[in-house]
């Protein structure tokens, strides 16, 4: 594909036509924070956002999603993808989407996710503000984002738009784009490089070293108990994580008491119910009974278990977990540092 440029003053026009022509989802303000939401008015699009509360995977994997609906004896699927343009996704979230793309497609493709994903166009954008807990500059450097259809970088006097796919190029007709000049491309490259050095937090260890040591720390129950002492088992760290994809499934009837749905909800392995099985007569068994066991599972899953499959850690450094954790114990940078120090 090819690289384009659009003037600052033409950009507003482009957005106006884009939101009229397509279903656009982008970062918008919410009480001083940001969320991905439907953009109907270009002024609502906040490309200067630092990070959103929930990651954009919700566009393909909604926080609750019917899997099967029923009416009496009739049972039907409800895969029905909608065309949407995710506009302004930061590179770390693209990396996370790449991971969920792989995980939902492997060993039996889950069309409830992939159909939505395939129908979407992703326009990534350069990071203009850095969130206070971000560490995307230092984690998983071995993995490059690849699932986006275009990458938009703010440079002097306008934006460089690097189209990577036909879906990315399809948006060009909506704006006054011209071929980018070498100097503009160089400016974009420099801007994207420079911002990666601006993270307030840095993971000082390489992925392979972390994976090995964190895995080896599994039996150190005192360590995990200490790290999780203040944990509420509230699952916030899971629920805001762009690479978490666990879900619960529940059935319910509609009020007519004959139709209803089987629905999946984002779930969290930090909650105490997650691994609990009923044994009958009020008895149950919990395969991860303690906070420490659950806390450990999350860290190992982010730093070790999936590395081989994903080519790097299942963490992109967005810092959402650190920010969402009320007890402030979820920060992977701090946790991994403590585990590494305990191991040495």
């Amino acid at each position, binding site marked *: 594909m090819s690289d384009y440029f659009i003037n600052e003053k033409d950009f507003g026009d482009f957005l106006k036509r884009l939101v009229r022509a397509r279903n656009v*989802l982008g970062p918008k303000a919410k009480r001083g924070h940001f*969320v*991905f939401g*439907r953009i109907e008015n270009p002024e609502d699009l906040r490309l200067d956002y630092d990070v959103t509360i929930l990651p954009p995977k*919700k*566009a393909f994997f*909604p*926080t*609750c999603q*019917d*899997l*099967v*609906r029923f009416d009496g004896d009739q049972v*039907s*699927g*409800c*895969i*029905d993808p909608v065309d*949407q343009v995710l506009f302004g996704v930061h590179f770390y979230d693209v990396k996370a989407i790449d991971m969920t793309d792989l995980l939902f497609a492997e*060993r*039996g*493709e*889950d*069309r*409830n996710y992939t*159909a939505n994903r395939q129908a979407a166009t992703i326009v990534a954008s350069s990071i203009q503000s850095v969130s206070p807990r971000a560490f995307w500059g230092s984690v998983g450097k071995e993995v490059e984002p690849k699932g986006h259809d275009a990458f938009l970088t703010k440079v002097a006097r306008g934006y460089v738009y690097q189209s990577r796919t036909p879906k990315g190029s399809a948006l060009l007709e909506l704006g006054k784009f011209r071929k980018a000049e070498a100097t503009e491309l160089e400016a974009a490259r420099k801007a994207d490089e420079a911002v990666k050095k601006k993270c307030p937090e840095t993971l000082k260890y390489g992925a392979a070293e972390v994976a090995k040591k964190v895995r080896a720390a*599994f*039996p150190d129950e005192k360590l995990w108990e200490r790290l999780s002492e203040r944990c509420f088992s509230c699952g916030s760290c899971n629920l805001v994580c762009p690479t978490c*994809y*666990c*879900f*619960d*499934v*529940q*059935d*319910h*009837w509609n009020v007519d008491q004959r139709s*209803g*749905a*089987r*629905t*999946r909800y984002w*779930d969290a*392995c930090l909650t105490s119910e*997650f*691994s*609990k*099985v*009923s*044994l*009958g*007569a009020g008895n149950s068994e919990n*395969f*991860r009974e303690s906070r420490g066991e659950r806390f450990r*599972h999350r860290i*190992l*899953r982010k730093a*070790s*278990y*999936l590395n081989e499959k994903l080519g790097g850690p299942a963490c992109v450094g967005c810092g959402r977990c650190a920010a969402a954790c009320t007890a402030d114990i979820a920060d992977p940078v701090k946790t991994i540092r403590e585990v590494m120090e305990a191991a040495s």
Partner: protein
Amino acid sequence: MKRHCSCGVSSMAVHGESGGRDAGANLFLPRKAVILRVEQPTTMERHFTLRLADETPLDFEPGQILEVGLMGYGEIPLGLASSPTRRNTFDIVVRSVGRVSQAINRLQPGDSLLIRGPLGKGFDLAMFRGHSVLVVAGGIGLCPTRSLIQYILDRREEFQRFTLFYGARDPQQQLFLKDLAEWRGSKTVEYFETVDKGDPGWRGNVGVITILFPKVKIDPGTKVVVCGPPIMFKFVIRELAKLGIPHEDIFVDLERRMKCGVGKCGHCQINDKYVCTDGPVFSFAEIKTLEEAL
């Protein structure tokens, strides 16, 4: 208004569209199976014999699982309790422990269930053929292993010695009573049974399942299958170590909380493995380094 879900949380920023236009195979769409026969061996368990509603055979391997459910109630993972060598029907045993199992256990012959599967990895029969086999089943661990037991009995010539240990909590908890009666007198399987606690009518062994080991000689080349409550594994594996059975030859059939059955929902994970897709049958060699397995 189109909607994505029925959860009632209306403030969701993203509610995609839906309306029934199916865009491909849906992993979560179940098939209908009709209940042909119901037996109730214990107060808690019911044994169902089923056939797919379209009367096609269910193509599965011993040890694989099904997600079995009812719309409005949910689904539960169950090991197939019969062998694919047995006609066009298949068996499951449902223990009344939760909202789904209780609903299923109210069903009668002629009623339907919804199933997904077969799912997961069953017993690798190529590993077993030409060898002696020992099955150690505790409690409802007899249900999933029955798929292998029946298979071996049906293709007896493909295997060498076949030994079966079965332990139940007490005589009232014994499952598959007809099978047990048959096995007790059988020459094709060396069957040993015990109960943790006897009753006045019980003349057999009393004690935990490991008391059966001294009663028969197990050759070192035997392939062993272990399935039962978590506590049982540790002790059985200790006995097997004494017999010099290598870890590669021990196969365990594990159970966990499971929602999707297709390696996505995360509930059945043991360390980095998914019981539903990497298992439920694992070789002990494969899981002995997984702290969360046993």
